């Protein structure tokens, strides 16, 4: 079990920079009387399991891992809370790209086509856009073929390699459409993966939220409160904090909110993405 005098956070090692980021924050917290350590997991499912086994107090969760945690908690009579998130975790959208010269003008035109998506467990590059299309009456695997670019399964699309491969598949004609995060369109254009003039945005999902720092009930409240307060008072003006923020991709931490996960929740309900995982962990907890 995690030591009550020390706050233990779990994070998923989707990139070597994760160590730099949390080593930096550990030093920052240590200088402010918060004994903090972190544990890295190779995938979010192991992290969620560890959280319910009490091995960590707080989990830096993907939106899918948040839903997993929330649902396991509900199944076993516990409660999960999203305490903090990055400013950049709020109001993201996914887009469906087609080639500019394509005859695909509306969603219905995707029927019979091939749609490239990112990792199989990526909220932004698979689950949410496919859920969105289903809502609009265009069903994956029924009305169109889904080509999955499964980079680093278990990391919930944190590694953008899958999205990049999907965008490449669109550009080289292997796919007729590609689902990516809105901001990655600019990034892929800058790096030359896609050409802005050779692509067109067919559709954009409504806004949704991304990661959050999740705690479960019975977490040591004084440590959690101190952790939350220290995060929320961090300033981008600080020379100590700014390099870590730049690596982690935020300008400020904000209080967590959960209303931005409704689209993903609907999508995983529709596809049954996490049902067996949630059931399995809930049974372990009983």
């Amino acid at each position, binding site marked *: 079990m995690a030591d009550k005098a020390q706050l233990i956070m779990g994070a998923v090692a989707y990139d070597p920079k994760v160590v730099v980021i949390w080593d930096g924050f550990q030093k920052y917290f240590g200088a402010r009387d918060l004994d903090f350590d972190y544990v890295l997991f190779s995938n979010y499912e192991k992290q969620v399991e560890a959280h319910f086994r009490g091995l960590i107090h707080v989990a830096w969760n993907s939106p899918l891992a948040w839903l997993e945690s929330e649902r396991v908690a509900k199944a076993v009579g516990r409660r999960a809370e999203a305490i903090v998130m990055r400013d950049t975790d709020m109001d993201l959208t996914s887009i469906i790209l087609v080639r500019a010269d394509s005859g695909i003008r509306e969603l219905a035109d995707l029927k019979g086509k091939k749609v490239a998506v990112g990792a199989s467990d990526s909220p932004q590059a698979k689950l949410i856009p496919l859920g969105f299309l289903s809502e609009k009456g265009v069903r994956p695997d029924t009305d169109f073929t889904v080509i999955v670019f499964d980079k680093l399964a278990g990391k919930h699309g944190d590694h953008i390699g899958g999205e990049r491969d999907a965008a490449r598949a669109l550009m080289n004609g292997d796919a007729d459409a590609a689902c990516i995060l*809105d901001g990655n369109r600019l990034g892929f254009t800058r790096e030359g993966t896609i050409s802005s003039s050779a692509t067109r945005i067919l559709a954009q999902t409504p806004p949704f939220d991304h990661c959050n720092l999740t705690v479960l009930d019975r977490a040591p409240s004084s440590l959690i409160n101190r952790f939350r307060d220290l995060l929320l008072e961090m*300033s*981008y003006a600080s020379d*100590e904090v*700014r390099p870590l923020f730049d690596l982690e*991709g935020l300008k400020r931490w904000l209080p967590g909110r959960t209303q931005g996960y409704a689209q993903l929740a609907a999508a995983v309900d529709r596809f049954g993405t996490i049902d067996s995982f949630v059931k399995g962990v809930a049974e372990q907890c009983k």
Partner: protein
Amino acid sequence: MQIDLDLGPLGFSEGGHLLIKRALRNAGAGQSITVTGTSPELEIDLRSWCRDEGHGFELQPRNGEKPARAAIVNGGAEAKRWTGAQRAGQADAALADGVVGHAPRRWGLAARGATVEGGSPEFDFHLVDKIEVWSDDAARLYAQAVAAQWDPKTAIPWDARFELDDDVEDAVVQLMTYLIENETAALIIPSRFIAQLHPHFREVMQLLAVQAADEARHIDVFTRRGLMKRDHLGLSTAGGQASLKTLVDEPEFAIASFLLSVLGEGTFLSLLWFIERYAPDPVTAAVAKLAAQDEGRHVAFGIAHLTQHLNNDSSFRPRLADSVRRRHDALQHTAGLNAEVFDALVLIAAGSWDPEDLRRGHQRVMDLTKEMDEGRQKRLRRLGFSEQEAAELSSLHTRNFM
């Protein structure tokens, strides 16, 4: 004042972002601007960019063919980024605050005079104090060095026709072999210190770089002269290398500079002018002359920055003296100048095997060592050593010249 920016058909990633950034900068942190445009992707690009940059974003949905319109609130991240920034001195070294006494390691590679973001990484530069490295003459000497660069291909009369006795040619080859070895030490030593020197002392860094390039060229022309009529170069002795190794191993810049530039290269100046004067062929004369001109600058810089150092800290003078004594002690059981080099100098100065010429040649080499000694003493006195100290220290200088 409310800023309204109309991008027209210009896309965000086609340059529209520059206009938006400028407008936000002009508005200031916490202030709002409105952006309109007809580019089809504008809303999507703006939304994701504002999110990444920490700006507030509110979209007013477009109706049909009407332009997109969004309100953006400057989140202030750019201003915050530069809150703790520092100006790294001034580009102009002549200004009072141009070159600082202690250059912070976190200024790193930034140009002197640039504004350096707080939190920049610290570089592991060892030479960060002005007193150790700086000379007000560095910029002038650098400019002079750059203007005086010569092209080995055209500056040396490689096509000159000459035939030397085999023994004289061998003597020249031996001298060239010795010069190459010494110039290699003179290339390595400043090069090593360039990597340790804080780039804030830009003019010194540049001067040391040209100094290393000078030595590279000397090695080139000495090698070419050595191989003009021979397939192989001459001899390298353990004693000669031991002497040079004490220079290469010296960890402190100011002391290495004193031993190498003031004493070593100073002595070498006399040697190169001697070789130029008694050279048996025009190519040997030319390579010695051109190298001597460059070495003069190296000596000048050594004296200039050590003078400045000693003006600020006269207690450093005994340490310089000790370094000569230590080096002498370390080398006292080595052979010193190799006999082949000494003999080669005598033969070249003699010009022939005639006994009278040889006697004269030997005397000239004796005069050379006297001239070297006088030169060293003069330079030591310029650094503030007494006549007695200068005489003692000069006498302890390595017998290997460099």
